[in-house]
Protein backbone atom coordinates (compact mmCIF):
# COMPACT_ATOMS: atom_id res chain seq x y z
CA UNK A 1 0.00 0.00 0.00
CA UNK A 2 1.13 3.62 -0.34
CA UNK A 3 2.01 4.11 3.32
CA UNK A 4 2.77 1.59 6.00
CA UNK A 5 4.39 0.98 9.35
CA UNK A 6 5.02 -1.88 11.78
CA UNK A 7 4.27 -1.74 15.48
CA UNK A 8 4.87 -4.31 18.20
CA UNK A 9 2.74 -4.24 21.34
CA UNK A 10 3.61 -6.89 23.94
CA UNK A 11 3.79 -10.22 22.09
CA UNK A 12 1.90 -9.05 18.96
CA UNK A 13 3.37 -7.46 15.86
CA UNK A 14 1.11 -5.47 13.54
CA UNK A 15 1.63 -4.31 9.98
CA UNK A 16 -0.53 -1.32 9.13
CA UNK A 17 -1.02 -0.18 5.56
CA UNK A 18 -2.84 2.98 4.56
CA UNK A 19 -4.00 4.77 1.46
CA UNK A 20 -3.13 8.08 3.23
CA UNK A 21 -0.06 9.36 4.98
CA UNK A 22 -1.72 11.04 7.98
CA UNK A 23 -2.87 8.00 9.96
CA UNK A 24 0.55 6.36 9.58
CA UNK A 25 2.35 9.49 10.77
CA UNK A 26 0.03 9.71 13.77
CA UNK A 27 0.60 6.05 14.59
CA UNK A 28 4.39 6.46 14.37
CA UNK A 29 4.23 9.38 16.80
CA UNK A 30 1.86 7.74 19.25
CA UNK A 31 3.91 4.51 19.23
CA UNK A 32 7.34 6.19 19.24
CA UNK A 33 8.47 4.13 22.27
CA UNK A 34 7.39 0.81 20.78
CA UNK A 35 9.48 -1.43 18.51
CA UNK A 36 8.74 -0.58 14.88
CA UNK A 37 10.93 -3.13 13.12
CA UNK A 38 9.51 -4.91 10.13
CA UNK A 39 9.53 -8.65 10.69
CA UNK A 40 6.78 -11.06 9.69
CA UNK A 41 3.69 -9.61 11.38
CA UNK A 42 1.09 -11.50 13.36
CA UNK A 43 -1.61 -9.32 11.85
CA UNK A 44 -2.11 -7.07 8.85
CA UNK A 45 -4.39 -4.05 9.06
CA UNK A 46 -5.51 -2.01 6.05
CA UNK A 47 -6.89 1.52 6.14
CA UNK A 48 -8.29 1.85 2.70
CA UNK A 49 -10.47 4.23 0.75
CA UNK A 50 -14.07 3.11 0.41
CA UNK A 51 -13.70 3.82 -3.32
CA UNK A 52 -10.94 5.26 -5.46
CA UNK A 53 -12.68 8.65 -5.60
CA UNK A 54 -13.07 8.63 -1.85
CA UNK A 55 -9.31 8.60 -1.36
CA UNK A 56 -9.31 12.32 -2.18
CA UNK A 57 -12.84 13.66 -1.78
CA UNK A 58 -14.46 13.48 1.66
CA UNK A 59 -12.15 10.57 2.42
CA UNK A 60 -13.65 7.67 4.32
CA UNK A 61 -11.45 5.05 5.97
CA UNK A 62 -12.68 1.50 5.59
CA UNK A 63 -11.33 -0.89 8.21
CA UNK A 64 -9.91 -4.04 6.68
CA UNK A 65 -7.24 -6.62 7.35
CA UNK A 66 -6.73 -10.27 8.21
CA UNK A 67 -9.91 -10.24 10.27
CA UNK A 68 -12.84 -7.97 9.48
CA UNK A 69 -16.46 -7.55 10.44
CA UNK A 70 -18.89 -7.35 7.54
CA UNK A 71 -20.80 -4.40 8.98
CA UNK A 72 -17.90 -2.26 10.24
CA UNK A 73 -18.84 1.30 9.28
CA UNK A 74 -16.09 3.46 7.72
CA UNK A 75 -14.75 6.51 9.59
CA UNK A 76 -13.81 9.97 8.26
CA UNK A 77 -10.09 10.41 7.59
CA UNK A 78 -9.66 12.77 10.58
CA UNK A 79 -10.43 9.71 12.72
CA UNK A 80 -7.93 7.51 10.86
CA UNK A 81 -5.92 6.93 14.03
CA UNK A 82 -9.03 5.63 15.75
CA UNK A 83 -9.74 3.42 12.75
CA UNK A 84 -6.24 1.94 13.06
CA UNK A 85 -6.67 1.31 16.78
CA UNK A 86 -10.07 -0.30 16.25
CA UNK A 87 -8.67 -2.48 13.49
CA UNK A 88 -5.74 -3.58 15.68
CA UNK A 89 -8.17 -4.45 18.48
CA UNK A 90 -10.28 -6.42 16.05
CA UNK A 91 -7.29 -8.49 14.91
CA UNK A 92 -6.47 -9.38 18.51
CA UNK A 93 -10.08 -10.08 19.44
CA UNK A 94 -10.72 -12.40 16.50
CA UNK A 95 -7.30 -13.80 15.67
CA UNK A 96 -5.08 -14.15 18.74
CA UNK A 97 -4.64 -17.72 19.98
CA UNK A 98 -1.49 -17.70 22.11
CA UNK A 99 -3.28 -16.39 25.19
CA UNK A 100 -6.75 -16.34 26.61
CA UNK A 101 -7.89 -12.82 25.86
CA UNK A 102 -9.90 -10.99 28.49
CA UNK A 103 -11.56 -7.66 27.78
CA UNK A 104 -10.03 -6.02 30.83
CA UNK A 105 -7.42 -3.57 32.05
CA UNK A 106 -4.54 -4.44 34.33
CA UNK A 107 -1.79 -2.94 36.45
CA UNK A 108 0.81 -4.62 38.64
CA UNK A 109 3.03 -3.97 41.61
CA UNK A 110 5.77 -6.21 43.01
CA UNK A 111 5.12 -8.71 40.22
CA UNK A 112 1.44 -9.18 41.19
CA UNK A 113 -1.27 -7.97 38.83
CA UNK A 114 -4.72 -6.53 39.45
CA UNK A 115 -7.13 -7.35 36.62
CA UNK A 116 -10.16 -5.08 36.16
CA UNK A 117 -12.99 -6.06 33.89
CA UNK A 118 -16.44 -4.71 33.15
CA UNK A 119 -18.65 -3.42 30.40
CA UNK A 120 -17.55 -0.37 28.40
CA UNK A 121 -18.00 2.76 30.47
CA UNK A 122 -17.49 0.94 33.78
CA UNK A 123 -14.27 2.88 34.24
CA UNK A 124 -11.72 0.09 33.99
CA UNK A 125 -9.67 1.92 31.38
CA UNK A 126 -9.43 5.24 33.25
CA UNK A 127 -8.75 3.47 36.52
CA UNK A 128 -5.82 1.58 35.02
CA UNK A 129 -4.48 4.82 33.51
CA UNK A 130 -4.69 6.61 36.87
CA UNK A 131 -2.98 3.75 38.69
CA UNK A 132 -0.34 3.71 35.97
CA UNK A 133 0.55 7.29 36.93
CA UNK A 134 0.66 6.49 40.65
CA UNK A 135 3.33 3.91 41.12
CA UNK A 136 1.79 0.89 39.41
CA UNK A 137 3.05 -0.71 36.22
CA UNK A 138 0.45 -0.21 33.47
CA UNK A 139 -0.20 -3.54 31.69
CA UNK A 140 -3.02 -2.55 29.34
CA UNK A 141 -6.42 -0.89 29.23
CA UNK A 142 -8.16 -3.08 26.69
CA UNK A 143 -6.94 -6.68 26.70
CA UNK A 144 -5.42 -8.88 29.37
CA UNK A 145 -3.48 -11.80 27.91
CA UNK A 146 -3.51 -14.93 30.09
CA UNK A 147 -0.95 -17.60 29.22
CA UNK A 148 -2.75 -20.99 29.32
CA UNK A 149 0.46 -22.88 30.05
CA UNK A 150 1.86 -20.79 32.90
CA UNK A 151 -1.12 -18.81 34.22
CA UNK A 152 0.95 -15.62 33.80
CA UNK A 153 -0.24 -12.30 32.34
CA UNK A 154 1.53 -10.95 29.26
CA UNK A 155 1.38 -7.12 29.20
CA UNK A 156 -0.35 -5.51 26.24
CA UNK A 157 0.22 -1.83 27.10
CA UNK A 158 -1.26 -0.01 24.15
CA UNK A 159 -1.86 3.72 24.42
CA UNK A 160 -4.91 4.33 26.61
CA UNK A 161 -8.00 5.31 24.66
CA UNK A 162 -9.49 8.12 26.79
CA UNK A 163 -13.11 9.00 26.22
CA UNK A 164 -15.05 12.19 26.96
CA UNK A 165 -14.69 13.29 30.62
CA UNK A 166 -11.73 10.95 31.20
CA UNK A 167 -9.69 13.14 28.85
CA UNK A 168 -9.71 16.18 31.13
CA UNK A 169 -9.15 13.97 34.18
CA UNK A 170 -5.97 12.52 32.70
CA UNK A 171 -4.81 15.87 31.32
CA UNK A 172 -4.81 17.09 34.93
CA UNK A 173 -2.96 13.96 36.02
CA UNK A 174 -0.25 13.86 33.36
CA UNK A 175 2.11 16.81 33.18
CA UNK A 176 3.50 16.03 29.73
CA UNK A 177 1.55 17.17 26.68
CA UNK A 178 3.77 15.11 24.37
CA UNK A 179 2.25 11.90 25.75
CA UNK A 180 -1.17 12.76 24.32
CA UNK A 181 -2.40 12.07 20.79
CA UNK A 182 -4.67 14.32 18.75
CA UNK A 183 -8.19 15.07 20.02
CA UNK A 184 -10.82 13.38 17.84
CA UNK A 185 -14.31 14.83 18.12
CA UNK A 186 -17.62 13.27 17.12
CA UNK A 187 -16.38 9.72 16.83
CA UNK A 188 -18.85 6.86 17.29
CA UNK A 189 -17.64 6.78 20.92
CA UNK A 190 -17.75 10.56 21.48
CA UNK A 191 -14.52 12.52 21.91
CA UNK A 192 -11.39 10.38 21.99
CA UNK A 193 -7.80 11.17 22.89
CA UNK A 194 -4.97 8.67 23.29
CA UNK A 195 -2.46 8.70 26.11
CA UNK A 196 0.93 7.05 25.68
CA UNK A 197 1.82 4.92 28.72
CA UNK A 198 4.90 5.86 30.75
CA UNK A 199 8.10 4.77 29.04
CA UNK A 200 8.86 2.13 31.72
CA UNK A 201 5.56 0.35 31.00
CA UNK A 202 6.57 -0.03 27.36
CA UNK A 203 10.16 -0.99 28.16
CA UNK A 204 8.94 -3.78 30.46
CA UNK A 205 6.22 -5.02 28.13
CA UNK A 206 7.85 -8.37 27.39
CA UNK A 207 8.07 -9.22 31.08
CA UNK A 208 5.13 -11.33 32.29
CA UNK A 209 3.52 -10.94 35.68
CA UNK A 210 1.35 -13.10 37.91
CA UNK A 211 -2.35 -12.32 38.39
CA UNK A 212 -3.40 -11.86 42.00
CA UNK A 213 -6.61 -9.86 42.30
CA UNK A 214 -9.67 -9.74 40.04
CA UNK A 215 -11.95 -6.70 40.23
CA UNK A 216 -15.27 -5.85 38.59
CA UNK A 217 -15.31 -2.05 38.93
CA UNK A 218 -18.34 0.18 38.35
CA UNK A 219 -17.79 3.91 38.10
CA UNK A 220 -20.33 6.50 39.31
CA UNK A 221 -22.06 4.48 42.02
CA UNK A 222 -22.00 4.87 45.81
CA UNK A 223 -19.04 3.10 47.35
CA UNK A 224 -19.58 -0.64 47.79
CA UNK A 225 -17.51 -3.82 47.84
CA UNK A 226 -18.90 -7.30 47.27
CA UNK A 227 -17.10 -10.63 47.12
CA UNK A 228 -17.61 -12.47 43.84
CA UNK A 229 -17.54 -16.26 43.91
CA UNK A 230 -15.69 -18.50 41.48
CA UNK A 231 -18.69 -19.45 39.38
CA UNK A 232 -19.81 -15.85 38.87
CA UNK A 233 -16.25 -14.77 38.01
CA UNK A 234 -16.05 -17.63 35.55
CA UNK A 235 -19.29 -16.74 33.79
CA UNK A 236 -18.50 -13.03 33.66
CA UNK A 237 -15.03 -13.71 32.26
CA UNK A 238 -16.28 -16.09 29.57
CA UNK A 239 -18.47 -13.19 28.46
CA UNK A 240 -15.48 -10.82 28.63
CA UNK A 241 -13.30 -13.09 26.51
CA UNK A 242 -13.28 -12.88 22.74
CA UNK A 243 -11.41 -16.14 22.19
CA UNK A 244 -12.53 -18.39 25.04
CA UNK A 245 -14.52 -20.62 22.69
CA UNK A 246 -11.82 -20.59 20.03
CA UNK A 247 -9.20 -21.86 22.50
CA UNK A 248 -11.30 -24.90 23.37
CA UNK A 249 -9.90 -27.03 26.16
CA UNK A 250 -6.91 -24.73 26.70
CA UNK A 251 -9.29 -21.85 27.33
CA UNK A 252 -11.29 -23.91 29.80
CA UNK A 253 -8.18 -24.98 31.71
CA UNK A 254 -6.80 -21.45 31.74
CA UNK A 255 -9.97 -19.79 32.92
CA UNK A 256 -10.99 -22.33 35.56
CA UNK A 257 -7.43 -22.24 36.90
CA UNK A 258 -7.48 -18.45 36.89
CA UNK A 259 -10.71 -17.97 38.84
CA UNK A 260 -9.75 -20.63 41.37
CA UNK A 261 -6.42 -18.95 42.11
CA UNK A 262 -7.89 -15.47 42.35
CA UNK A 263 -9.55 -13.35 44.97
CA UNK A 264 -12.41 -11.49 43.26
CA UNK A 265 -14.50 -8.45 44.23
CA UNK A 266 -17.06 -6.19 42.59
CA UNK A 267 -16.37 -2.59 43.53
CA UNK A 268 -18.56 0.47 43.04
CA UNK A 269 -16.93 3.88 43.32
CA UNK A 270 -18.07 7.44 42.84
CA UNK A 271 -14.97 8.97 41.22
CA UNK A 272 -11.43 8.17 40.18
CA UNK A 273 -9.83 9.11 43.50
CA UNK A 274 -12.13 6.78 45.37
CA UNK A 275 -11.48 4.03 42.83
CA UNK A 276 -7.70 4.32 43.25
CA UNK A 277 -8.04 4.29 47.01
CA UNK A 278 -10.27 1.19 46.96
CA UNK A 279 -7.91 -0.73 44.68
CA UNK A 280 -4.98 0.17 46.97
CA UNK A 281 -6.91 -0.98 50.03
CA UNK A 282 -8.11 -4.29 48.52
CA UNK A 283 -4.61 -4.89 47.28
CA UNK A 284 -3.06 -4.50 50.72
CA UNK A 285 -5.82 -6.62 52.30
CA UNK A 286 -5.94 -9.44 49.78
CA UNK A 287 -3.91 -9.01 46.64
CA UNK A 288 -0.45 -9.64 48.05
CA UNK A 289 -1.59 -12.59 50.10
CA UNK A 290 -3.52 -14.25 47.31
CA UNK A 291 -0.63 -13.65 44.97
CA UNK A 292 1.69 -15.55 47.29
CA UNK A 293 -0.75 -18.45 47.35
CA UNK A 294 -1.04 -18.49 43.57
CA UNK A 295 2.72 -18.37 43.19
CA UNK A 296 3.15 -21.31 45.54
CA UNK A 297 0.48 -23.40 43.81
Amino acid sequence: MRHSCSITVGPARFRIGSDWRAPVDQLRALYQDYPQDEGVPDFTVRLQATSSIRRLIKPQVAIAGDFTLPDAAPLPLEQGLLAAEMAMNLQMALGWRRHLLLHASAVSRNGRAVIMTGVSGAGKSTLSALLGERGWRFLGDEFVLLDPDTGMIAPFPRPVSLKNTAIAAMEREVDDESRFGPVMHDTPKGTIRHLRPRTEAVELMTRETRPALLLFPRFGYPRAVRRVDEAESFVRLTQASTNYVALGERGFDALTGFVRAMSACAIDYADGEEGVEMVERLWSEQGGKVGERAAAA
Partner: protein
Amino acid sequence: MAAPRFSALPAAALKRVPLGGLEAIYHVSSGITHLLAEPVPDLLDALARLEPGRFVTAAQVLALVAERFDIVGDDPGEAPEAVVSERLSELGALGLVTIVTDA
Protein backbone atom coordinates in the same frame (compact mmCIF):
# COMPACT_ATOMS: atom_id res chain seq x y z
CA MET B 1 -42.66 -46.69 24.46
CA ALA B 2 -40.24 -48.10 27.02
CA ALA B 3 -38.50 -45.80 29.51
CA PRO B 4 -35.26 -44.29 28.22
CA ARG B 5 -32.03 -45.62 29.67
CA PHE B 6 -28.89 -43.61 30.28
CA SER B 7 -25.16 -44.14 30.20
CA ALA B 8 -22.11 -41.99 30.96
CA LEU B 9 -19.81 -40.80 28.21
CA PRO B 10 -16.23 -42.12 28.27
CA ALA B 11 -14.27 -40.33 31.00
CA ALA B 12 -12.13 -38.48 28.45
CA ALA B 13 -15.20 -36.88 26.84
CA LEU B 14 -15.72 -34.40 29.69
CA LYS B 15 -13.51 -32.16 31.81
CA ARG B 16 -15.09 -31.22 35.10
CA VAL B 17 -13.94 -28.51 37.51
CA PRO B 18 -15.79 -27.54 40.71
CA LEU B 19 -16.29 -23.77 41.05
CA GLY B 20 -17.70 -22.90 44.42
CA GLY B 21 -21.01 -24.74 44.66
CA LEU B 22 -21.28 -25.24 40.91
CA GLU B 23 -19.40 -27.31 38.41
CA ALA B 24 -17.93 -26.20 35.10
CA ILE B 25 -18.00 -28.96 32.51
CA TYR B 26 -16.11 -28.85 29.24
CA HIS B 27 -17.59 -31.12 26.59
CA VAL B 28 -14.71 -32.11 24.34
CA SER B 29 -16.55 -33.06 21.15
CA SER B 30 -18.64 -29.87 20.99
CA GLY B 31 -16.16 -27.49 22.63
CA ILE B 32 -19.06 -26.15 24.68
CA THR B 33 -18.74 -25.28 28.38
CA HIS B 34 -21.68 -25.97 30.70
CA LEU B 35 -22.15 -24.70 34.22
CA LEU B 36 -24.21 -27.13 36.27
CA ALA B 37 -25.74 -26.92 39.73
CA GLU B 38 -26.33 -29.88 42.00
CA PRO B 39 -27.64 -32.48 41.82
CA VAL B 40 -26.75 -32.66 38.14
CA PRO B 41 -23.01 -33.31 38.66
CA ASP B 42 -24.01 -36.08 41.09
CA LEU B 43 -26.19 -37.69 38.44
CA LEU B 44 -23.18 -37.68 36.11
CA ASP B 45 -21.00 -39.12 38.89
CA ALA B 46 -23.52 -41.89 39.53
CA LEU B 47 -23.50 -42.87 35.86
CA ALA B 48 -19.72 -42.61 35.65
CA ARG B 49 -19.27 -45.05 38.55
CA LEU B 50 -21.05 -47.83 36.65
CA GLU B 51 -19.05 -50.13 34.42
CA PRO B 52 -18.50 -48.53 30.99
CA GLY B 53 -21.27 -49.02 28.47
CA ARG B 54 -23.93 -49.98 31.00
CA PHE B 55 -27.30 -48.27 30.55
CA VAL B 56 -29.64 -47.72 33.49
CA THR B 57 -33.12 -46.27 33.92
CA ALA B 58 -33.92 -43.04 35.74
CA ALA B 59 -35.27 -45.07 38.65
CA GLN B 60 -31.94 -46.87 38.95
CA VAL B 61 -30.04 -43.57 38.85
CA LEU B 62 -32.34 -42.22 41.53
CA ALA B 63 -31.51 -45.19 43.74
CA LEU B 64 -27.80 -44.48 43.23
CA VAL B 65 -28.06 -40.86 44.37
CA ALA B 66 -30.85 -41.32 46.93
CA GLU B 67 -28.41 -41.45 49.84
CA ARG B 68 -27.29 -37.91 49.17
CA PHE B 69 -30.34 -36.27 47.67
CA ASP B 70 -33.97 -36.08 48.49
CA ILE B 71 -35.23 -35.37 45.00
CA VAL B 72 -38.83 -34.24 44.75
CA GLY B 73 -40.94 -33.09 41.84
CA ASP B 74 -42.32 -29.59 41.34
CA ASP B 75 -45.85 -30.87 41.72
CA PRO B 76 -46.79 -33.06 44.68
CA GLY B 77 -47.99 -35.73 42.28
CA GLU B 78 -44.77 -35.82 40.21
CA ALA B 79 -42.66 -38.89 40.74
CA PRO B 80 -38.99 -38.24 41.64
CA GLU B 81 -37.77 -40.57 38.90
CA ALA B 82 -39.67 -38.37 36.43
CA VAL B 83 -37.59 -35.40 37.65
CA VAL B 84 -34.38 -37.39 37.26
CA SER B 85 -35.45 -38.65 33.86
CA GLU B 86 -36.18 -35.11 32.70
CA ARG B 87 -32.80 -33.78 33.89
CA LEU B 88 -30.97 -36.70 32.30
CA SER B 89 -32.87 -36.20 29.04
CA GLU B 90 -31.76 -32.56 29.05
CA LEU B 91 -28.20 -33.71 29.56
CA GLY B 92 -28.70 -36.11 26.67
CA ALA B 93 -29.91 -33.31 24.42
CA LEU B 94 -26.70 -31.43 25.26
CA GLY B 95 -24.67 -34.52 24.44
CA LEU B 96 -23.43 -34.95 28.02
CA VAL B 97 -24.92 -38.43 28.53
CA THR B 98 -25.90 -41.16 26.09
CA ILE B 99 -29.55 -42.17 25.84
CA VAL B 100 -31.17 -45.26 24.36
CA THR B 101 -34.89 -45.74 24.05
CA ASP B 102 -35.78 -49.37 23.45
CA ALA B 103 -38.43 -50.01 20.88
